[in-house]
């Protein structure tokens, strides 16, 4: 069992939450934090180092890197959040098919997830992008598809537990239709425990999304998505280090904070559930 969180780790969680709030503001209202529009080109100011006018310097087209990093929060987070949503949604549908459909459906879904989980997830995501083609939406779907089998197994496990609970039996005895019992009682009660896992997955999904963009398979230029910016920075390393450093720092800080908050949530949640952990 984990011990009670110390003052230090509580402080860490608070700090992480504060950083995430800042990232959320950047994603929702980038204009509040950015000093320039993300795609304002100014060739006279190209490839400047960090300084008072441009805090993080400028890129080869004279665009302000700080403003692009701020504007990059939205596409980067959307990719991670969208992929997690796709994974939870697809996982829940698969799990419900397994739970509602009886033994044959359950066996088929479970063996399918066996095979998918026995295969490296990133390779699965790459394969989906290969079929659908590069782009923001397709990259989101690809990562969601790679995460879905894990969620399907977890939702199924929870749903099987919930199905045996008294209130579900009561609903069945009262003569509610099967579909109604499953949709109104089993599914809603099987989902909450997964929110913790979903939070932790957002960090991994943001990383996976930025990796796909870095490979040129996600959001396309001139999107200020962090992975795409780093990919451009790779080609400019000979002349400036700024584009290769700042978007990566923003990305890493975001993922570290998501993981810190996610772990804190998990510890609290497991503490409240007897026998879990």
């Amino acid at each position: 069992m984990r011990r009670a969180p110390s003052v230090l780790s509580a402080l860490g969680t608070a700090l992480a939450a504060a950083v995430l709030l800042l990232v959320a503001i950047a994603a929702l209202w980038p204009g509040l934090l950015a000093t320039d529009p993300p795609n304002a080109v100014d060739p006279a100011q190209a490839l400047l180092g960090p300084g008072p006018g441009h805090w993080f310097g400028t890129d080869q087209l004279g665009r302000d890197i700080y403003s692009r990093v701020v504007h990059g929060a939205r596409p980067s987070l959307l990719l991670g959040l969208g992929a997690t949503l796709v994974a939870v949604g697809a996982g829940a549908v698969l799990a419900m098919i397994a739970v509602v459909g009886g033994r044959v459906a359950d066996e088929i879904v479970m063996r399918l997830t066996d095979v998918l989980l026995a295969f490296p997830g990133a390779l699965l995501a790459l394969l989906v992008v290969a079929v659908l083609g590069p782009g923001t939406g397709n990259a989101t779907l690809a990562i969601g598809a790679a995460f879905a089998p894990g969620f399907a197994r977890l939702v199924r496990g929870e749903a099987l537990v919930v199905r045996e609970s008294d209130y579900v039996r009561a609903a069945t005895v009262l003569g509610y239709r099967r579909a109604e019992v499953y949709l109104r009682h089993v599914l809603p009660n099987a989902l909450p425990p997964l929110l913790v896992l979903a939070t932790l997955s957002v960090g991994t999904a943001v990383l996976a999304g930025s990796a796909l963009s870095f490979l040129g398979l996600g959001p396309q230029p001139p999107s200020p998505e962090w992975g795409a910016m780093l990919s451009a920075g790779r080609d400019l390393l000979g002349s400036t280090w700024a584009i290769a450093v700042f978007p990566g720092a923003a990305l890493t800080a975001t993922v570290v904070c998501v993981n810190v908050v996610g772990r804190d949530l998990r510890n609290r949640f497991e503490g409240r559930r007897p026998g879990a952990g």
Partner: protein
Amino acid sequence: MKHDPDSEPDAEPGAPSAGGPGAPRGGGRAALARWVARRLLLAVVVVLGAATVTFGALRLTPGDPVKVMVGISAAQNPEIVEQARHETGFDRPLAVQYADFLGDLARGDLGWSYQLQESVPTVIGDNLWPTVSLTLAGFALAFLIAVPLAVATAGRRPAWRALSSLLELVTVSIPGFWVGLLLLTFFSFRLHLFPATGGTGLSGLVLPAVTLALGLVGLFTQILRDGMARALDEPFALSARARGTGETAVRLRHALRHALIAISTISGWTVGALLTGAVVVETVFGRPGLGRVLATAIQNRDFPVVTGITIVSGALFTLITLGVDLLYRVVDPRLREAPA
């Protein structure tokens, strides 16, 4: 890139993720044979599944897959398209195509890349060694970093463990391609110690291997440390200490051996992380290899290459995880008895 929630480093460090179904219940050779048979069957299903998915994927692609395959410039010429359609068998019924596909696969014929103008097995053969050397070096390096860290911090003062946990948090949260970029910025462009791109010699291997290794170090350290902490609480550790064996010797000779076995529980995650890490690392460092060929092939929608590399790496992945699981079952008799 790290993936499915099950193998997420946080999920269950101690739980076997590659143990798979069908653990033997009773002891003995028959049970082990049954376990191997089930795992082999699963391996065949996985590879066949991967092959079927790639086959189906190509047919589900929006637009004319033949035009996509021959490339944009050649697609302008209807003669080339029709010839390619006939050569690839796309003009025949789906069931015949599938049977042909499986037959070709059984003969090792993975098709022809229109982008690279080479047969896919040749492409894979030419690029296999750089990737294998990179992943082996990365794996070995991750071990060399994780073992001393775990030996030094297991069961020690909380401050050490906190520091080590912080390191683990950072290594699971930091994108590998950014680590690569930072190393390139500093060591190649500032200090000019290593080649910035395409180095295939030993000096060109250093930075890519370090980048790949850092992605593994966090989870390796965590699992080794947990395994060592458990082993240090066992009666055999106490009896070794009672015999007067020094603390370092207890850790190295007794506890570490047990902890190393714990690493086998994440062999599937490790191989997956190495395979996909290679894609990113080879792209960052401009290194030749299967990963970079795969990334380029996806961008160019060079399907035969994508299909070929997916099937080959899927097969390698299942074979390696099966081999590792089997090896550890032979080495550690307890694993043969215990349900995985």
